[in-house]
């Protein structure tokens, strides 16, 4: 707000700012009371069912609650100390990072590629629906399907046999070097659809004119994409990126179902690790500590998102 001119200051003095402020406050208070009524159900649900558990979780991560023992003793950072000292934790954290990065990079690049490919192609809608379809399947069902696709006698090996001409029986989900890529591929198969649809929506919202202007300016199609369309698409890309990252962080169902035969399943990601420690071994407090660590990481990412998004929007709008 610009500084007030002298005459405005006089005006304010004449009419008295306090009375105005009071009147505005009264209006706002009345509005607030009404708004609170409208928000009440949502607030109750969210606070009671979502925020309370989060606080509870943070508290319990500082206790030594396990198995049959009640929730009473406060042990400070002991769980965290134990956690950070564990080699399984390091492994799970590392794998989570791989997950996050892969489920960010691959679906976004692939989704963008497919979106560009499909734009305006004949039967665009049919293709779009097909690629989106896995998204409405439950991850559990997807996990079951792909579990058998990857089985030693499953579809993938069969197809590879057809290609190579000899029998292939790789145990994709049994080996350390293939299990993560295999599950990531499934994750990608499931999530590319939504990424693609979001990007297509973004692309269709890219105004036609700057693209045509670039064409007039002498840009070849790829230059148009690179110099004009993608920069304009940045806000959508940021949204998509963040959706992908969060999906990567919290992915559980696929890892649970598809990793069930992998000897070191609990190290596949932090979430699986937490589930093991808490529910398999009854280490509630310890599991709670892992959950808090995941929470902190997710908040960090969300925060970065907010920054990126603000920047991207400032750039384009």
């Amino acid at each position, binding site marked *: 707000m610009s500084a007030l001119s002298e005459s405005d200051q006089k005006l304010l003095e004449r009419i008295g700012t306090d009375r105005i402020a009071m009147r505005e406050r009264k209006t706002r208070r009345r509005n607030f009371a009404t708004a609170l009524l409208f928000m009440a159900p949502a607030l109750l649900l969210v606070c009671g069912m979502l925020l309370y558990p989060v606080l509870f979780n943070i508290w319990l991560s500082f206790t030594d609650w396990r*198995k*049959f023992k009640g929730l009473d003793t406060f042990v400070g950072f002991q769980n965290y100390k134990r956690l950070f000292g564990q080699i399984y934790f390091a492994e799970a954290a590392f794998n989570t990072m791989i997950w996050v990065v892969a489920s960010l990079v691959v679906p976004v690049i692939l989704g963008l590629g497919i979106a560009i490919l499909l734009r305006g192609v004949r039967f665009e809608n049919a293709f779009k629906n097909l690629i989106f379809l896995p998204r409405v399947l439950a991850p559990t069902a997807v996990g079951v399907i792909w579990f058998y696709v990857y089985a030693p006698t499953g579809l993938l090996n069969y197809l590879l046999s057809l290609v190579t001409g000899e029998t292939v029986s790789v145990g994709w989900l049994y080996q350390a070097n293939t299990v993560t890529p295999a599950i990531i591929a499934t994750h990608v198969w499931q999530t590319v659809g939504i990424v693609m649809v979001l990007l297509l929506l973004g692309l269709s919202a890219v105004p036609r004119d700057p693209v045509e202007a670039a064409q007039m300016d002498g840009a070849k199609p790829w230059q148009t994409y690179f110099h004009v369309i993608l920069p304009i698409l940045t806000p959508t890309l940021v949204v998509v990126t963040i959706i992908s990252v969060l999906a990567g962080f919290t992915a559980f169902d696929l890892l649970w179902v598809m990793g069930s*035969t992998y*000897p*070191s399943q*609990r190290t596949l990601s932090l979430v699986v690790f937490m589930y093991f420690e808490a*529910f398999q*071994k009854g280490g509630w407090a310890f599991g709670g500590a892992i959950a808090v660590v995941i929470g902190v990481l997710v908040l960090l990412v969300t925060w970065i998102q907010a920054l990126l998004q603000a920047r991207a929007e400032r750039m384009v709008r």
Partner: protein
Amino acid sequence: ADVPLYHDKGFWSQQFQVVGDAAGEKTGVRIVQNSYAPPEQYKAFVQSSIASGSPPDLFTWWTGQTMNELVATGQVAPLDDVWEKLVASGEYDQSTQDLFKVDGKTYAVPFSVARWVVLYNKKMFADQGLSEPKTWEELMAAADKLKAAGITPFNATVQEGWRGFIWFSELMIRTDPEAYKGLFNGTVAYDSPAVEKVFQLWSDMYAKGYFTDPRSNEEPQDFARGKAAMYLIGEWGEGLVDAAGLKPDADFGAFIMPNMDPKLPSAVVVEAGPMVVSVAGKEKPDIMTALNFWTSVDGANVWSKASGNFIGNTKADAPNPTVAKISADMKTNNTVAMQRWWEAVPPDLQGELVAELNGFLLNPTMDNAKMIMGRMQALNADYWEAKQ
């Protein structure tokens, strides 16, 4: 009156209910089964209800260390009075009662007592002119002969992620039962010579091609399809093979695996499924009525007919030919019951150790075995050290 029975054996819930209904008819106290899945959730449910001081009256649990932990809470009732009558009536053996003892008191009745035996394909054995092996040498000879005929001798997989210990514990028992027991209280290390010997043996058997692809997810079906001639599994597996199309007695038989050292007493792994009663439940007559029906000959018959499971009542009908045969074999050989590795090992180590064993199945070389032994022992040592 209805009494609830909580369990995590969803696949047997109908069968449980058959018994429950029969109890209702016979005694007026109907058992209503409540099934939970998966097991982790079930454990969490029981653990938290105990933590809050209100455990279910009647529920299934696990034997071994898991049972010890439960008993330690003081919230389940000893059932020695019940057992006194059961043993006195001659329906149950003392050895069966021993399966449920913690510090001298008995805390459970069985809903299943399954021996871990070798199922074998009778046709394959007949084709190769083989009969039930009585000694380790005969077993190995049979394996060699089968192998030579292009038949894989043994079926073993990592299906569902928990099966890795089966052969490990069996081989431990067949070679060094004392060391086997020592594994469970920290006195024998997982990288001790006794264990290494087992891994060597196991690895050699793999090297000879004795085992099927560990990555199959259709273990019982594989056996039924003739992918292997022998299948080491709990007696409850009989029903699965049956369902997969191979008929007991006619198509396949069962025997207890012989010991490597013939001087050792005959032994078999017994997996017992315990059913426990809370302290409060013990005071309720209906609960005890239900429990009594469950363990009675009538109850056992209904259950075995419905589920194919043996609960240890020797006066009851054997649920299937396999159980009958094994019971008879045990009697003749004075076979002793051994605790299953899964129940015997501290629960906190179960998951991690069995994962390592699965890792061996997938890469059964001695090099890998050495690494695995090291890692298992590291976990084991940590655990016992923390226990001090």
